[in-house]
């Protein structure tokens, strides 16, 4: 009893300290004049949410998507266009666009849910390409087509988050909210149904789980996550163009997820952070970037199929031997 209380207190202390450090991080970064870190951290926040979305559909419910850039695009363009024409506050338009993406995701998943793995990937590629084409060659050029689209920054009660350092807190809060949402989802009945479908959809069916409905639900929730991060992207960079929403972006999401580790709490975080830092590090090598990227990806696939987080866990297990809390 005493021990548990002690543990609880020390845990809370740890929380507070970490939270405090994360909150004060910008001050520290400003002192050492490394404002550029905000840019990278902001992108990390955005991609963590997008990849978490993909993790729900791929990692937990076992359905592949090579078209998540489409949801990213729907979130980004949906929110930006909605704000431009209705002047609804940006945060609201981001949420509306995310809901819209969820509906579209469900609409896609309804017929797609009966396809096997490989052909689901083809269907999602086609979906991604169709959305890309519509964004790039929109009727009446509402998306700005290839020229691109300038967007507004997020503003909270009239306070504009127009720099990366201001965006930091918004990103931090969003990540916490979405990760907690994801964790609660996975622990719920719905989450268990997702995992059951992933492990064996026939058995899940036998257990009385409505496989199709849950598959559709997984897609819709996943689309919501990724679209919200798309909205964050649009209002953080303040300029969007179709280039960002091409097929290679979908591959990037999947790469981050696999890099970090699927179906885990921290996989998306590990993935987004490592791939984005890798990108920064590889920037110096300029034209070899894609080559090195491909080789590293291949190595991770062949050597570390559990992703970085899987590898970390393996090591942790070796150290702790018994009594690990399973993630």
């Amino acid at each position, binding site marked *: 009893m005493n021990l548990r209380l002690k543990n609880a207190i020390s845990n809370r202390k740890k929380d507070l300290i970490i939270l405090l450090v994360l909150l004060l991080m910008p001050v520290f970064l400003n002192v050492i004049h490394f404002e550029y870190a905000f840019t990278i951290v902001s992108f990390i926040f955005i991609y963590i949410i997008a990849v978490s979305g993909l993790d729900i559909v791929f990692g937990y419910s076992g359905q592949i998507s090579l078209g998540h850039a489409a949801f990213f695009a729907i979130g980004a363009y949906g929110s930006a266009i909605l704000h431009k024409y209705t002047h609804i506050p940006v945060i609201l338009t981001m949420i509306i666009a995310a809901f819209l993406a969820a509906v579209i995701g469900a609409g896609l998943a309804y017929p797609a849910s009966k396809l096997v793995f490989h052909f689901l990937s083809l269907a999602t590629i086609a979906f991604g390409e169709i959305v890309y084409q519509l964004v790039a060659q929109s009727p009446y050029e509402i998306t700005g087509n290839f020229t691109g689209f300038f967007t507004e920054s997020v503003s909270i009660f009239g306070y504009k988050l127009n720099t990366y350092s201001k965006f930091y807190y918004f990103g931090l809060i969003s990540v916490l909210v979405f990760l907690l949402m994801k964790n609660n989802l996975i622990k719920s009945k719905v989450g268990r149904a997702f995992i059951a479908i992933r492990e064996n959809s026939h058995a899940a069916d036998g257990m009385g789980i409505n496989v199709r409905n849950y598959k559709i639900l997984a897609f819709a929730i996943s689309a919501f996550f990724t679209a919200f991060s798309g909205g964050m992207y649009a209002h953080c960079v303040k300029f969007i163009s179709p280039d960002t929403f091409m097929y290679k972006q979908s591959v990037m999401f999947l790469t981050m997820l696999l890099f970090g580790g699927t179906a885990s709490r921290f996989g998306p975080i590990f993935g987004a952070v490592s791939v984005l830092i890798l990108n920064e590090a590889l920037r110096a090598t300029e034209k070899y970037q894609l080559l090195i990227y491909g*080789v590293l990806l291949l190595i991770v696939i062949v050597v570390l199929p559990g992703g970085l987080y899987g590898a970390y866990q393996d090591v942790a297990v070796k150290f702790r031997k018994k009594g690990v809390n399973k993630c």
Partner: protein
Amino acid sequence: MIIQILVSGLVLGCVYGLIALGYSLIYKASGMLNFTQGDILTLGAFLGYTFYGVFHIPFILTVIIVFIIMLGFGMVLEKGIISKLVAKGTLPIYTVLATIAVSYIIQNGSMLVWGTQSINFPRIFHVTNIRILGVNIQTEAFVCILVSMICMVSLHIFMKHTRFGTSMRAAAMDPLAARSLGINVSLATGLTWGISAAVAALAGMLIGPLYGVYTTLGATIGRKGFASAVMGGYGNMYGAMLGGAILGLVETFTSAYISSSYKDLVAYILLITFLFIKPTGIFNERAIQD
């Protein structure tokens, strides 16, 4: 004019078809998707250019050399990466992602070797044009269609009517049973990847003189090849070519008579529609649904 559009559509269709042929072959033999086909096409075109355009080796010899090199490349790809992953029992998506990684490597690698400018693939024939039905058709275009047809028929015969083809199909259907019958399953799957790569490289050499060679030549073609394969019935040789022809014609006629802006849109809408409504394709090839 309409005949020329028809021919252009068919040439494009044949290229899609040859790529789709590779997809079907691999799917039939190992149940895998391969995302490198498009970039292998690019690589084949670059190699063909190097041997034919730079070293001035006769074209026929060039084709044979590149065919053999890419056959080896495909087998190494399968043996070195794919079969290793399969043996480890990893999820199929990892093999798919591995092929995407390889395609990145090929794209960037060929950029480093051959540069980024588009390269002129010298003409193969001295006769510039052939006159068919009162219309001038570029000789290379005509040959492209002809060679594709030959490829399709010979691959079909190879798979259906030779001992080796039968063992390949058997290996795909039930690897365990095939192995117990003394079939070299590992060789059979390796060979299908090799043949697919070789066919894609062949397609690259055929379109080189028509379009020029550059690093992103095959990327879009590779993705649209999937549409052809699905339309025809994934896993069916004739279906792959038919799907390719349909896609090529639809694309060219859309841009000629409706609008060029909708060309790609139409291609992908066709793909998704077939997947949702008729996933077995025109030739009713099964094993696509859960």
